[in-house]
């Protein structure tokens, strides 16, 4: 919890002078592609050393936010400061402090792991002994030392992601920004990658900001921000968000959901949501309601599911939309 509070007691004098609270400070950020508003009035702060995730379906604004924060795209409206440096006016200072992992590979497959890292070091002005030491340290940190001379194109997807991480961390950034880092990995490789991220946070002392549409990846963050249709609809630790959902979540599938919804309202004085053709009820002590519902409407019910709220439930609770239905629409 301490990492998620905005005023961090360990802030340096330097930060205090600048009036900044931590790693990233974003105010009223907006972005338009022509007529389409991709990001609107997004405001948040991220503390030093925090592990922060942006969760949302594709098209929710995650990628636009990533492009703005990574300095790939100039800021249109609002402001963003990283460690006190303005993203618009002090791009050079921001870039030196920033390590980026892209959704698509940014390694040259024809070069070896070592060559890719050397190349990256040179772009950041690192040479000679210091570069060799940094490369050795990163390869060691990510257990890649045996692969230094392998061409990147010969490595598995999971290994390539690790090389991306080694590259992004080579110049000792203070903030690591990752765009959908585990997309395209199988579940095992995804877990492994998450473990490495966790490991990095502990050993490299870096602030981590990532975007994701995987619930389990979001669960591991100190705090998450939920992006929906270009707006930041919530920002809190995952546990807190889940506790905002009223108790348990009951989802009922029926042949005539609208009719059943009305009957539930009449009989139990209970309002429910209709999400993706299913009736959804949030309720404390939900198991008792399940029993009563089956007693009353057993004939009409096809299936009932009951569970503690997940982040997916949080998304539905906040937006009234099914997370993955949203994904299917935008893809």
């Amino acid at each position: 919890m301490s990492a998620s509070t905005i005023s961090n007691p360990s802030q340096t004098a330097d930060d205090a002078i600048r009036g900044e609270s931590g790693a990233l400070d974003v105010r009223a950020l907006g972005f338009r592609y022509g007529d389409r508003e991709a990001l609107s009035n997004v405001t948040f702060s991220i503390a030093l050393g925090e592990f922060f995730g942006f969760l949302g379906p594709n098209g929710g604004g995650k990628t636009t936010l990533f492009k703005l924060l990574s300095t790939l795209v100039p800021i249109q409206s609002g402001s963003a400061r990283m460690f006190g440096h303005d993203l618009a006016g002090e791009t050079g200072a921001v870039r030196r402090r920033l390590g980026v992992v892209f959704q698509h590979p940014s390694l040259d497959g024809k070069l070896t792991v070592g060559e890719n890292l050397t190349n990256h070091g040179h772009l950041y002005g690192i040479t000679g002994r210091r570069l060799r030491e940094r490369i050795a340290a990163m390869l060691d940190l990510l257990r890649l030392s045996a692969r230094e001379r392998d061409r990147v194109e010969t490595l598995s997807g999971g290994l390539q992601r690790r090389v991306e991480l080694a590259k992004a961390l080579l110049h000792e950034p203070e903030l690591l920004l990752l765009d959908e880092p585990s997309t395209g990995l199988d579940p095992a490789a995804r877990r492994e990658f998450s473990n490495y991220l966790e490991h990095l946070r502990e050993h490299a002392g870096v602030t981590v900001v990532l975007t994701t549409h995987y619930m389990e990846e979001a669960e591991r963050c100190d705090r998450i921000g939920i992006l929906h249709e270009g707006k930041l609809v919530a920002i809190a630790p995952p546990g807190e968000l889940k506790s905002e959902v009223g108790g348990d979540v009951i989802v009922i599938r029926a042949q005539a959901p609208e009719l059943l919804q009305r009957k539930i309202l009449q009989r139990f004085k209970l309002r429910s949501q209709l999400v993706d053709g299913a009736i959804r009820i949030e309720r404390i002590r939900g198991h008792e309601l399940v029993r009563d519902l089956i007693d009353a409407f057993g004939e009409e019910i096809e299936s009932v599911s009951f569970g503690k709220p997940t982040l997916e439930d949080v998304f539905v609770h906040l937006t009234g939309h099914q997370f993955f239905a949203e994904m299917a629409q935008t893809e």
Partner: protein
Amino acid sequence: MREIFLQAATLWQREIVRFIRQPIRVMSAIATPLVFWLLLGAGLQASFKPSGMPAGIDYAQYFYPGVIVLMLLFTAIFATASTVDDRRQGFLQGVLVAPISRATIVLGQALGCTTLALMQGAIFLAMAPLAGIRLSLEAIAVSAAMMAVIAFAMTSIGLTMAWRTESTQGFHAFMNMLLLPIWMLSGAVFPVAGAPAWFQWTTRLNPLTYAVDALRRALYLAEPASSGATMPMGSSVAIAIAFAAFAFILATRVARNASTI
């Protein structure tokens, strides 16, 4: 300054290394113009006597500098094409968020692609005797310098387009549409002297004409009379260099404003 040099050098090196590791690129870049020259040159030689051809030079010799320029042109197109996808979902993404100016990125790319073109040019120069062209060391040196200027100009045009085009297909279509006519209208394929007036005017406005002419003089340094060149060396070289500089500055401008959406 040291940093800019280091950054440009590392991008340059990357272009060379990845090229060498793709033998098919090396082969195709050499084979395409060679086939072009052998078939077209040999076929046209028998039946094709363009008017305005200087005495004492046969068509294969006349066409030789033109084929060199064509090869530089192909190399420029193929070497710069990767920029289109690379900046969106490849290697260049990482370069774009590094503390490096867009002008330095373009410089590294342009020098890398120019070097690739020159490496192929060297092989091509080595085959000159097969065309009955004897090259002195001096001619080789001056020709290589001219080829570098032409390659740098072509590469810069390629980068200008690659940084503003959204798809690789679109890039290739546009480059072929743009560069092949420029090449044909440069006096590379047949002497301008015998062509209609409008053609001669277009040729005179084409900066590549001067570069090709200078290359002609450089290749046939020992026998200027039969070089087929029509303009003084000094002004041709100056115009070629100015053209290359202009194309490079244009490329850096376009790259600076290129969006990555």
